[in-house]
C-alpha cells in the first residue's frame, strides 16, 4: 500500500480557486501482425524472449526496415483525428541507456511527425469540447523489465531484474493533445471522456486492440493550474502509470487537489514526472525533469525518409470507417432513441452489442431491453463487462425471435439465458434439451382451459357476467398446470372465447 503525506484541497474548493489545464499523451500499440522494423510476431502473452530476432534484439550489424502496415495504420489514425499527413518525414533516434532498450536508443519521430494539427470532438455533459491534437507519431516499443525480489515490483529494492524483449520493436503510436483549457470542474471527466472517445475511435479503425489492462493503450496525463481567470499557467506535472479509464479521471482529480494545496500554501509546483497508484488513487514523484536526460535526437541514418504518396493517403482516407460519434448519431436516429437513452447505452458498453443484435434480426427495442436489462444485471453480478459474457449478439437475437414467435415467454427466455451463460449450448439447443417451448398446441391448451373453468366455477361465472378482469385467476391456473410453458395472452383469449 502506498501512502501519501500530501496535503490536499477538496476538489470543489480547488476548482473554485483554480482553472485546470490538462494535456494527454496516449501510447497505442498497433495491431500489426509483425513488429515495426522486423518480421517477428506481435502476439501478447508469449513465452518471454520467444518473439525476437537480431533486429529487435538490436544485435550488432542488424538494421531496421519499416513496416508499411504500421505507416498505413498511423496515417489512418491521423486522418481520423483530422490531422495533416506529412508528405515527407524522417525517423529519429532518441538516445538513452536502459536495459530494456536493446540498442540504447529508440527509433522514434522528433521534429518531423507523420501527422500534425488535428482535433477530436468530445461530449462532456451538455457541451462538446474540441480537443486539439498536436501530433501523432510512430515509434518502436521497448522491452519489459520484471523486477524481482522487491516489495513494490519497482526497481528500487529489487534483487534482480529480468528483461523480456518480446515487446521490443512493436509499433507504438503516440498521440499528443494540445493543452485543453476551459473545462473547469469537468477537467477529470473531460480527460476520461477524451481517452474513451479516442479508444473507441482507434478500435473502430481496426488499428489496435486498445486494451489498457494489457498495456496496448497507455496514457500519460499532464496537469497544471492557474489562479481562476488569471490565465497564468503554473508548472505542469506529467503523471504516468495511468492504466484504466477510471484512473485517468482520478489522476487528474488528485493532481488538481494536490497542486491547489501547494499553491495555496505559497509553494511552487515542481516540474516532474509523477507515478499514479491504482490502490490509493494518489500520485508520488518519479524522476524530476530538472535531472532530465538530453536525448540527443538526430535523424535515423539507417532508414530512408517516409514519403507517403498523396494518392495512397487519399485511398486510406476513402476507406476510413464511420467515426464512433457519427455512428452514434446515426443509430440514435435509426433506433429512435433519446439522447439520454443513447448515452446510457454507450456508457454501459452495450452499443456494439445492440447494433450487432439488431443486425442479427432483433428489433432495436428488444435488443436494448435484453442487453440493458437481464444481461447487464448478469454482467454486474459476475463483475464482468457485457462484452465478456458468454452470450453472442446472434444468440440474443435468436432469443428475441423465439419470444416474439411465442415459442418462449419472458420467464422461459431468462431460463434460456441462464443455460446459455452456463455453457449449455445455443438457445435452440437449450430449448430442445429442456423442452422449454411454450405450449402452443391449441388442443392441449383448450383442454387445460376447460379444466381450469371446471375447477373454478365461481370465477367462471363472474367472467360470464362480464367481469373479464377475473380471467387472471384462470390464466394463472392454466399457467400453473402447464408449468408456465403456455403463452399467457393466448390463454387469456381462449378463456374469454369459452366464457364469452
Amino acid at each position: 500500500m502506498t501512502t501519501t503525506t500530501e496535503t490536499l484541497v477538496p476538489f470543489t474548493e480547488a476548482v473554485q480557486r483554480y482553472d485546470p489545464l490538462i494535456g494527454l499523451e496516449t501510447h497505442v500499440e498497433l495491431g500489426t501482425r509483425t513488429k515495426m522494423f522486423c518480421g517477428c510476431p506481435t502476439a501478447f502473452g508469449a513465452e518471454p524472449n520467444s518473439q525476437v530476432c537480431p533486429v529487435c534484439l538490436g544485435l550488432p550489424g542488424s538494421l531496421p526496415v519499416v513496416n508499411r502496415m504500421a505507416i498505413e495504420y498511423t496515417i489512418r489514425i491521423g486522418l481520423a483525428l483530422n490531422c495533416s499527413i506529412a508528405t515527407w518525414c524522417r525517423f529519429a533516434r532518441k538516445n538513452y541507456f536502459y536495459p530494456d532498450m536493446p540498442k540504447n536508443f529508440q527509433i522514434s519521430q522528433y521534429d518531423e511527425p507523420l501527422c500534425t494539427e488535428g482535433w477530436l470532438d468530445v461530449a462532456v455533459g451538455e457541451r462538446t469540447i474540441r480537443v486539439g491534437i498536436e501530433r501523432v507519431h510512430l515509434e518502436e516499443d521497448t522491452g519489459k523489465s520484471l523486477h524481482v525480489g522487491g516489495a513494490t515490483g519497482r526497481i528500487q529494492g529489487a534483487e534482480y531484474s529480468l528483461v523480456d524483449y518480446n515487446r521490443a520493436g512493436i509499433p507504438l503510436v503516440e498521440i499528443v493533445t494540445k493543452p485543453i483549457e476551459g473545462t473547469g470542474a469537468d477537467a477529470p471527466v473531460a480527460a476520461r471522456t477524451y481517452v474513451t472517445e479516442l479508444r473507441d475511435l482507434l478500435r473502430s479503425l481496426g488499428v489496435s486492440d486498445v486494451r489498457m489492462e494489457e498495456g496496448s493503450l497507455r496514457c500519460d496525463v499532464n496537469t497544471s493550474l492557474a489562479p481562476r481567470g488569471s490565465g497564468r499557467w503554473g508548472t505542469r506535472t506529467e503523471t504516468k502509470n495511468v492504466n484504466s479509464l477510471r484512473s485517468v479521471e482520478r489522476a487528474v482529480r488528485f493532481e488538481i487537489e494536490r497542486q491547489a494545496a501547494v499553491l495555496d500554501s505559497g509553494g511552487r509546483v515542481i516540474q516532474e514526472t509523477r507515478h499514479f497508484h491504482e490502490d490509493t488513487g494518489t500520485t508520488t514523484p518519479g524522476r524530476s525533469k530538472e535531472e532530465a536526460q538530453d536525448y540527443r535526437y538526430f535523424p535515423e541514418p539507417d532508414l530512408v525518409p517516409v514519403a507517403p504518396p498523396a494518392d495512397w493517403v487519399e485511398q486510406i482516407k476513402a476507406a476510413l470507417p464511420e467515426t464512433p460519434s457519427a455512428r452514434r448519431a446515426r443509430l440514435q436516429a435509426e433506433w429512435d432513441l433519446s439522447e439520454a437513452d443513447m448515452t446510457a447505452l454507450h456508457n454501459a458498453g452495450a452499443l456494439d452489442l445492440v447494433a450487432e443484435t439488431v443486425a442479427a434480426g432483433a428489433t432495436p427495442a428488444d435488443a436494448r431491453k435484453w442487453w440493458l436489462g437481464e444481461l447487464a444485471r448478469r454482467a454486474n453480478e459476475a463483475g464482468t463487462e457485457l462484452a465478456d459474457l458468454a452470450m453472442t449478439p446472434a444468440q440474443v437475437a435468436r432469443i428475441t425471435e423465439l419470444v416474439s414467435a411465442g415459442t418462449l415467454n419472458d420467464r422461459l427466455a431468462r431460463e434460456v439465458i441462464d443455460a446459455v451463460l452456463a455453457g449449455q449450448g445455443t438457445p435452440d439447443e437449450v430449448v430442445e434439451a429442456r423442452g422449454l417451448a411454450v405450449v402452443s398446441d391449441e388442443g392441449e391448451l383448450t383442454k387445460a382451459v376447460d379444466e381450469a373453468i371446471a375447477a373454478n366455477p365461481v370465477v367462471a361465472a363472474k367472467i360470464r357476467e362480464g367481469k373479464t378482469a377475473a380471467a387472471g385467476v384462470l390464466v394463472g391456473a392454466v399457467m400453473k398446470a402447464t408449468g408456465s410453458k403456455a403463452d399467457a395472452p393466448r390463454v387469456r383469449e381462449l378463456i374469454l372465447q369459452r366464457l364469452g
Partner: protein
Amino acid sequence: MELTRMTAAELSAALADGQVSATEVTQAHLDRIAAVDDRVHAFLHIAADSALAQAADVDKRRATGEQLAPLAGVPVAVKDVFTTFGMPTTCGSRILDGWHPPYDATITQRLKQAGAVILGKTNMDEFAMGSSTENSAFGPSHNPWDLDKVPGGSSGGSAAAVAAYEAPLAIGTDTGGSIRQPAAVCGIVGTKPTYGGSSRYGVVAFASSLDTPGPFGRTVLDAALLHEAISGHDPMDSTSIDAPVPPVVAAAREADVSGMRIGVVTELSGDGYQPGVLSRFAEAVEVLESLGAKVTEVSCPHFKYALPAYYLIAPSEASSNLARFDAMRYGLRVGDDGTRDAEEVMALTREVGFGAEVKRRIILGTYALSSGYYDAYYGKAQQVRTLIIRDFDAAFGQVDVLVSPATPTTAFGIGERADDPMAMYLADLCTIPSDLAGNAAISVPCGLAAEDGLPVGLQVMAPALADDRLYRVAAAAEAAFTDRWGQPLLASAKG
C-alpha cells in the same frame, strides 16, 4: 604453379578447368597464412576447418557437373566487422571478445552462396576507427612492404592479407577511406562502391550514413569480380539501392579510357602531400592522357571542409551506434559481482571494453549531438556535406571521373602517429569527400615514391551508380603501368 601468387581470375579459370581443386587452393593459402601471419598479423581468426569444409563442398559440387559462380573455390578474407555465423566477430574490440553472432551478414551470405571460401576474419582498427590498425585491441597488422610500417586502416588486416599473398581477395568497409587508404599503402586495389550499392546488413555499424563494404584484390579485374559478387539490392538494408549492379567486370576487361573526360581535383594536392606521392600521381595522369583521356583541372572548393565535417558526422552516428555495447545481452561484462546495479556494470564494461580512440569519438559525437550544440556541430556538418555533394555534382557535369592521390603520404611507421590523432586523421584527407557524398571511388597502385620506395595509390572517383567507370580507368592505368614496370607493382615488394 604457385597457387598463392595467382590472381582470383586465374584461380577461377584453373578451378573451372579442373587444373586445381578448391581444397588445394585453400590449403595453399592456409599454409601461407601459417608461414607469414605471425609477422603480418593480418588475421584475428583463422577458420581453417570451415574453409576446408567449404572447399570440399565446392569440389564435390563441381564434380557433379554443377554450374558454379566465378568465385567458387576462390579464397577470401573477411574484415572482422561482418557478422559470420560459426566464427567470432570482434570488430577489433575487447567489448565483443567471445561473441559468436547468430546470423550471417548479407555479404557473408552472398560469399558463401557464390562458393567463395572464407579463410577467416581480418584485423582492423577498433570499430573501424583509425587509419593504421594500431587501434585494434589485438595488436596492429604490419605492412608486407615493410613490417615496421602500418598497413593503413581501418581495413588494414584485409589489405595486408592480400598484399602478403595470404588471400587473393578480401572484403573491407570504407567509412572515411578505410578500404582505399590501406589499399594504397599496401600497393593493391581497393574499391569503395556507391553507398547503398553493397549491403550493410550484418556490418557492425560505425557511421551508418557512410559505411560502405567493398572489395580488395591484387588486380583491378579481381576487385571487380568480388565487387560484382557482393553487390546488389538487399531488402534487409533500407538504404540499399534497388538498381542493377553497374557492369564492373565488363568495364575492367575493356580497360579503355579513350575519349573519357578526367578531372584532376585542384584541392587534393599541394601542402602536406609527400613529393614522391605527387610525382607518381602526376605521372599517372600523364599515362591516362597518353591512353586517350581528356584531362582537365577541376576545383571542388568545399573539399577543404570535408575532414572537419566528417569528424562531426561520423562520431555523432558512432556515439549512438556503439551505445548498444552495454554488457546486458552479449560480449564483455565487467563488475557483475552482485554488488553493482546495471548502470554501474554498463559503465565499467564500457570503460574496460573500449579503447582510447573509440572513447574519444563517442565523447566527440555525444557532444556534437547535445542539445544546444546540435545546430553548430552536427547540423553545420550536414550542411557542409550538402555543399560537398554539390561540388561533386558540378564537377561531374564537366568530367566523367575525378582523380587524385589516394593518400597524402605513403605508409607511415608503426607508432609514428599513434599519439597524434590529427596527424592520423589526415591520412584520410583524399578519401573522405567520396564517403560524405556517397559516390564511388577506387585506389589503384601507380608506382613507388622515390624517397621511401613505398607504394602510392591513384584514386579515381565516379558519380553514384557509375562504379563501372572506376574499373574502366583503373584497369587502363594498371595495364599501362604493368607494361612500363615489366611486372605488377607488388612483385617488387621485398617480402
